[in-house]
């Protein structure tokens, strides 16, 4: 446990964003995770992304389940809304919240246990419905909070701290998400701040479910030789396939794109994600091709990162289900609850 707090210090000449807020205004409570935990870097990247997008923390909702990763919603955006929910049930909570108030920006933070074991069914359906949210899956291949058992994302052959090797095949969250219709699939690494921040910004601005699978090493139980999710292993097999930059609508696009170099994807808010292919033969708009690359990279241990797949054409849940864009709290009660007579009429239609 930490016994100190990070002081809030306003320094002179500190950079401020469009709202006049400093980066530290996007911090939360002091992390109680182990020193060196990858999750803390993801937390810092989230805070930086919201700061750079000049989003008001009060317009953000943070939700999580149970686990080390799920604790981290406390550690950023102290002024945002939020809830720690039941283990693996965060996607349902987020789905409900997004249905009744589409005006807020949702971010779910989860881990490989919370998402790929107990919560895999919940996550799958949130992806299918294309709930408008950013979903951070902090993936360390281990149950850290219970001291080091293999998780559902542990690779075959990866060893536990005392040497036992994992023999069950891993679930790759990116391949899994693609297979159930995900519209935004990315992978990054807690140690690559620049890439992570730009992908998070793109994910926040994507309308629909944005999954970011972040390799986030567990410094206490899965950072040893023999682990395939250690800092050393990740740095060694790290491979950037597609770089993504979010460009807000206010910024006039003056650069011209060279064919095959930068690919612009227009977003619903009028902004643009500029995709820069680092692998010439990788196409982040081809679902089957993306899955093919990911499956092949599994065989070579290569960790393929970047914005791996994007599809802006599919409607999100609110549009698909023809739900109202107006937050329910802003709709008069009489309209929300038209009374028994109205209910009877609806029921009549189904007789």
């Amino acid at each position: 446990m930490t016994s100190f707090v990070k002081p809030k210090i306003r320094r002179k000449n500190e950079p401020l964003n469009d709202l006049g807020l400093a980066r530290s205004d996007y911090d939360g409570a002091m992390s109680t995770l182990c020193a060196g935990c990858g999750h803390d870097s993801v937390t810092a990247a989230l805070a930086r992304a919201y700061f750079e997008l000049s989003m008001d923390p009060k317009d953000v909702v943070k939700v999580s389940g149970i686990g080390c990763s799920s604790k981290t919603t406390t550690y950023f955006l102290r002024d945002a809304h939020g809830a720690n929910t039941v283990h693996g049930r965060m996607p349902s909570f987020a789905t409900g919240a997004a249905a009744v108030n589409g005006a807020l920006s949702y971010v779910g933070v989860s881990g490989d246990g919370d998402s790929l074991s107990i919560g895999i069914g919940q996550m799958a359906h949130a992806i299918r419905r294309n709930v408008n949210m950013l979903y951070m899956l902090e993936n360390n291949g281990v149950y850290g909070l219970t001291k080091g058992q293999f998780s559902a994302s542990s690779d075959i052959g990866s060893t536990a701290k005392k040497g036992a090797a994992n023999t069950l095949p891993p679930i790759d969250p990116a391949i899994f998400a693609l297979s159930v219709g995900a519209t935004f699939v990315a992978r990054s690494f807690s140690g690559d701040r620049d890439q992570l921040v730009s992908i998070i910004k793109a994910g926040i601005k994507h309308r629909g479910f944005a999954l970011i699978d972040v390799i986030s090493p567990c410094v206490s139980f899965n950072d040893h030789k023999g682990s395939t999710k250690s800092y050393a292993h990740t740095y060694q097999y790290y491979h950037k396939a597609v770089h993504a930059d979010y460009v807000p609508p206010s910024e006039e696009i003056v650069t011209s794109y060279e064919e095959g170099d930068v690919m612009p994807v227009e977003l619903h808010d009028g902004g643009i994600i500029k995709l820069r292919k680092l692998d010439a033969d990788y196409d982040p708009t081809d679902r089957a091709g993306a899955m093919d690359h990911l499956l092949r990279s599994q065989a070579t241990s290569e960790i393929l990162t970047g914005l791996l797949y994007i599809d802006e054409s599919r409607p999100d849940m609110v549009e698909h289900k023809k739900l109202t864009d107006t937050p329910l709290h802003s709709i008069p009660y009489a309209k929300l609850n038209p009374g028994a007579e109205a209910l009877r009429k609806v029921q009549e239609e189904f007789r």
Partner: protein
Amino acid sequence: MTKTDTSNPDYFHKVVDCQWACPAHTPVPAYIRLIAQGRYGDAYLLNRDSNVFPGILGRVCDRPCEPACRRSRIDEEPVAICRLKRVAADHREDITDRLPKKPAKTNGKRVALIGAGPASLTVANDLAPLGYECTIFEKLSAPGGLMRSNIPAFRLPESVLAEEIGYILDMGVELKLDSPVSSMKALLDDGWDAVFVGTGAPKGKDLNIPGREEGAANIHIGIDWLESVAFDHTDKIGESVLIIGVGNTAMDCCRTSLRLGAKNVKVMARKPRNFFKASEWELEDAEEENVDIVVNHSPKAFVTKDGKLAGMVFEIFEYDVDAAGEITGQRVIGEETIPCTDVILAIGQENAFPWIEADAGIEFDKWHVPKVDEATFQSTRDGVFFGGDSAFGPKNIIWAVEHGHQAAISIHRYCQGLDLTNRAPREIELQSAKMGMFEWRYANAFDASERREMEHVALVDRFKRLNIEVELGFNAEQIAVEVQRCLNCDVQTVFDAPLCEECDACIDICPVECLSITPGAEDEAVLRASLTQPEAPDGQSLYVSAPLPLTGRVMIKDENVCLHCGLCAERCPTSAWDMKEGVIHIPHADDQEVRQEALA
């Protein structure tokens, strides 16, 4: 940019902004920690090693440390370093038995010191314990130089002055009072092994404009007038006094006038406020006493009536100031006559050596300033050294002390037959401040308190006597808060690249975001671009690590904004970051090597 070379002691020294800015390199954070522990005597002695006069300087130092203080990067005001120095002096226990002693026998070398000011006293302080027979010649009837004659007793009590000078004289230093040296050649003929000139800058500048001669009886040269007050030759002044000039001497003149009966005192400045030479705190103290500071008035003539001073005519100026704050143009827009009974001129001072003969072997430049080596303080005549204001013109006490230290090293080496330039080097000793998990040998937690304000004697009481000290000193509560404002910049962040596994924990925890891991680059600006606040004032360093083992990138730290809170080291899972207390050793005369034959 390659890995930062931290083996040069100046690298980490420069990070300790206050110590670096102090001419005598007083280890400020170290003595503030001692004060925090209630070890006032230890804090006093640590101060004394560097600046010799903690009690005096704790009241009247020019405080070059405070504008440099790292605290002012995040707070409006720096740590009250000077006030804390006074705390150490005021609250110290008896430390007399821990001071350097008069040696059992001398080494037979005789050193003449001219002028009993801070420079000469420092030379004596450094040389007497080594066995030198030091004799100080003073023209006045009491020692102290400008500390006694120019600084009024309401800022610096006589008892403090006497006590700290006494410590030095007790080391076996001979003080000859009322003994002006009238001939350098005659003195040299007495066969001294070395001579040190510390006669200050005793000549106040005059203002030769119309009416000067006729009004002479009521026109005073500031430093001469202060001296005459200090030695009880003057005890009153007229009702309305104009002070010409707006430096620290002017502040002493206006406040002294109020205590000698003046009712209406104006300080006349030629330029706007941000061009004033006086320290901000001295201006504030004067204004608190209702001194009127008038800007943009340039003296034109003295007005006399019936052969007596009646006022002064000023030209009123208007200035053009550019964006950088420099004056680019000026013009006269009017004229004003201000009546007065007395005028005190505080427009500067210069050194003067009417007693050094032209053929004494000591060369002067065309401005009649002696040619003095800036490192050794030796004049063009071997064995004759200068220091303090007499060497390079008016500076301040703390510079005089440092000149004294350096001259003492030179005199020591000269008398031992050693090369003057091959002096003992500065050194730094780094020692981990880690005591355990989240435990450090210093209070690393950031304290957001604001600077404590010094309390003053009430206005109605302070003018009753000339020597009522205005500042009361910090009370216990103020001390407790102010010591924790110090950021402990001497506890250095030291990075060991091979241990780093690039988890970014340090970068995330840093409350001022001064860290980054970035690909190596030749150009510092390229490296800085990865920082959240890339720009840095001139002279501030970028700490660059060796390539990191996993990716070959480098860790960089902006020394400009780091607050030495130690959170990077607390957060680091591999102890690649550590906090190390850096003790910077500034050599003095007793640190110079001694020839073997001299020991024998």
